[in-house]
Every structure is written in C-alpha cells, then in structure tokens.
C-alpha cells in the first residue's frame, strides 16, 4: 500500500526535561515525494524535532506519524522499523567511531540484510560519488569535517530510504563542498525521495518539490 504521508505531526506539545516549553501545537506534514526545509536559530528546537521523529522523545499531546504509523512510547519494534526507513545526516546521526568509513556507509544495508554483491556495488558507487575512496579504511576520528559530513551523506544515500533527515547540512563546509552538497540536495528533491532539512539558513539554491518553514520559540510557520 502506498504511503500517503511520510511525516505527519499534529498539534504536538512538548516540554523539556526542566519543564520548559519546547513545542506548542506544532504541526508539520511532508507528503511522499515532497521535502520540507525548516530554518531557525540555534536552540529553536530543530534537533528536538529530529529526536521526535526517531523516537528519542515523545510528544506529551498530539501525534507523531511516520509512514502512516503513529510513534508512541513503548512501540519499540515500530520505532526500530521506522528508524531503518530514515537516512540521516548531522545531529544525532553521527558516525560510529569504531567503524571505518566503508563500514559506516554500509551499515544501513547490513541492517536491511542486503546481499554481498549489492552491498559491494552500492558501496563502491557511494564512495565514488562522495569522493571517499581514499578514506574507505579510515576511522571517523581521523577524518576532516568535510570528509565526515560526506561520509554521513554517503551512508544516508546508500539504502535509498524514503526519508532523508538532514540536520545542519551545510554548516562549516568550504565553498566547493557547499556547492556539491546543495547540488546533491536538489538532485534528491527531484528524485521522489522526501527530505526534512533543518538548518539555521536555507540553502542558497531553491529546492524543487519543497515547502519552507520557519521555527522559532516552539512554533512552526510556513514561509513558502
């Protein structure tokens, strides 16, 4: 059955551990094939939004639905399955320090139980596409910031998951890599995969099939 909405947050209320308001009546819908770019200052709740989507936090009221299924506390199996459908970059999606670059990139395919031939083919394609062939056997602590980010992108792309969550994708990148990543984001938004991009500033190129939002003080508003 085709999924109607990739992400659907309805009237989400959330408080921090210290009891401060984080989200108040927050709603967001990303339909299949569309993307959302959410911008906002540091501390506005962008990363917490990702944590809601991956089941690290749960709304006090309202609902969080991914792929037409409602994420609730205690639904461990569903949360695990949902996490596998998300490719992530930045924020909570750091690389596994004890894995090499190649192992990190391959990991979503390992979880998906893909066959060795397919794993090899896709790994080679990803390492080539993100210029990581030389770093394939290196470990994350030895990588530069750019290489680290590119490895995350390669990992988020290898399994063609239906949703790509990208938290601050362009922070700290040099001009060349910035251009390359922006190009990649445009390509993904045209491919039919959905994206949720969370950033302080929107990419300087407009992404097709995308809605733009602004998050501030726990409230989300559509800006285009």
């Amino acid at each position: 059955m085709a999924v109607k909405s990739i992400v659907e947050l309805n009237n989400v209320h959330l408080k921090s551990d210290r009891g401060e308001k984080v989200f108040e009546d927050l709603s967001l819908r990303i339909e299949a094939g569309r993307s959302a770019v959410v911008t906002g200052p540091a501390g506005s709740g962008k990363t917490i939004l990702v944590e809601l989507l991956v089941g690290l936090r749960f709304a006090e009221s309202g609902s969080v639905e991914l792929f037409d299924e409602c994420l609730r506390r205690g639904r461990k199996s569903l949360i695990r399955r949902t996490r596998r459908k998300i490719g992530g970059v930045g924020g909570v999606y750091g690389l596994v320090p004890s894995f090499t670059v190649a192992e990190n990139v391959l990991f979503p395919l390992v979880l998906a139980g893909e066959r060795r031939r397919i794993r090899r083919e896709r790994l080679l394609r990803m390492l080539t596409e993100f210029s990581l062939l030389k770093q394939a056997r290196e470990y994350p602590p030895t990588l530069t910031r750019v290489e680290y980010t590119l490895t995350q992108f390669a990992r988020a792309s290898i399994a063609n998951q239906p949703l790509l969550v990208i938290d601050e994708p362009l922070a700290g990148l040099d001009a060349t890599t910035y251009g390359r990543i922006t190009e990649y984001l445009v390509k993904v938004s045209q491919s039919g995969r959905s994206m949720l991009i969370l950033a302080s500033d929107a990419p300087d190129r407009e992404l097709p099939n995308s809605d733009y939002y602004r998050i501030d003080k726990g409230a989300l508003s559509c800006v285009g």
Partner: protein
Amino acid sequence: MCRVNHILKELGHNLYRNPATALGSLMSLTLLFLLFDLFWVAAGTSERFYTRLLADMQMEVFVAEETPESSLAALNRSLEAIEGVRVVEFISREMARERLTSMLGADLLVGYDTANPLPSSYVLSFEPGYLNSADMARVENETAYIAGVDQVYYSKRWLAKAEQTRTIILNVGMALGILILLTALTSSANNIRLMIQTRAVGLWRMRILGAGRLFLATPFLLEGLLVGGLSAGIGWAAIFYARQEITFTQFELVTPSLQEVGIFCAAASLLGLTSGYLGIRKMLR
C-alpha cells in the same frame, strides 16, 4: 547471513581492538576455573580413597559362649536376612586362633589346646550403599537382639570421623564452587560492561539507525560464551597435561571423564553467556 557476518565481525573487533581486556578476562576466568578443577580432582581422589577404605569395612558379631552349635545355622540365616548384609562368614574358634597366629607371627595360645578362649564369630560384609554410620548402626541394633549374639564390633568412631571429613570436603567444595561462580560472573560481566562503555557512543548511533538491541548485544553475548568455554577448556587442558607429566606412586589422581569435562565447559560457556547478559542488560532494556 549479512547480519550474522556483521555480528561475527563485531565479535572479532571486540577481541581484536581490546586485546588486553579480552586476554585479562580469559586469564582471570582460566585461573578461577583451574582452581575449581583442582578442587574437583582433589575431591574425586579423596572420594575414591574413602570408598576403597569403606569397601574393606566389616562388622564382627561374636557368638555367646553358651550358644549350642545346633543354633548356629539359624543365627547365620538371621544375619543373612538383615538388609544391606552381603556376605556372612563364620569364624570358628580354631579359625580365629589361626588368624591371630598369622597376624602376630606366633601362637600365643600354646598350652590352651583344650580350652581355646577365643570366641567364635561371624564377619559381615556389606553392600556399598549401606557403608555409612546410619545403616551400620541399624545393623548393629538388629544384630544385638538376635539370640546367641554376645557382642557386635565395627570401627564406629573411624567411620564417623571419615564421614565428617567427607562432609567438610563437600561443603568446602560447594562454598568454593559458589564463590568461583560469583567471581567469574562478576569479573566477566564487568569486563563486558567496560567494553560496552568504551563503545557506548557507537552503539547508541547504531540504534538511531535502526539496529535492534539483540543485534547489538549478540557480539557481547557471544564473547561471554566464547571466553567462558575457552577458559574452562584451557583449565582442563592444563590439568590433563600435568596428570600426564607427573606420576604419583602413592595414589592415583582421579580426573573426570571427557564427557564430564565437556559438560563442564558447556556450563562454563553458559556462565559466560550469563555474565555477557549481565554486562549488557542495561542496553537490552
């Protein structure tokens, strides 16, 4: 298959990247199991020694002076009918004299040919299962009430001492076994917990990507299983090697059969698995 490969690879990584922790865990468990094995061998050896000593144990039933010879057959039948008695051997006065002479090397009763003062008696041998204080005391009581019996004698105090020693060995063995079990569990679980702590960030990130808890925990469980089984195997290998090299002339060392060793190694693996579980149980919650 892909996930199984990954789990095995992770197990290899755990051992390869933390060789000191893995080796330390293996060595400490090996020493603990070796201690346990040595006690097992000592207990087995002393148990055989004790069984051999007991097997020779007999009870002497002295016939009353005034008992007519015609009653001896009935007395013999009564003794044979007692539960646990295997053989009843009649020792006449003459045979008693011969035995005494052979024991002492000289006939002390020269001149008493017509009036042999030694009483005739019955020597009772027992089934192995009845060679214990309780059964022997029961036989003693039953025998004492049979007509024609004057006195009953067996090494009562020696038997009680031997049984006491055996109980002490058994209790010490039990206490040592429990202590070793707890130490092995704690030590191994702690090593695995330390290993998990060093990799906590990576494990958390894998979970964010959708890795299940069991998928992440399996390499650590396998590590416990492997280290437990291997250390038990090394301990026994050392014992068997030493037994082959060292010869005891006074007694023979009793080692368990290969089947028992196999069962012990399997139990040690299970112990390792349990310690692995204890080490990662927080992650499995």
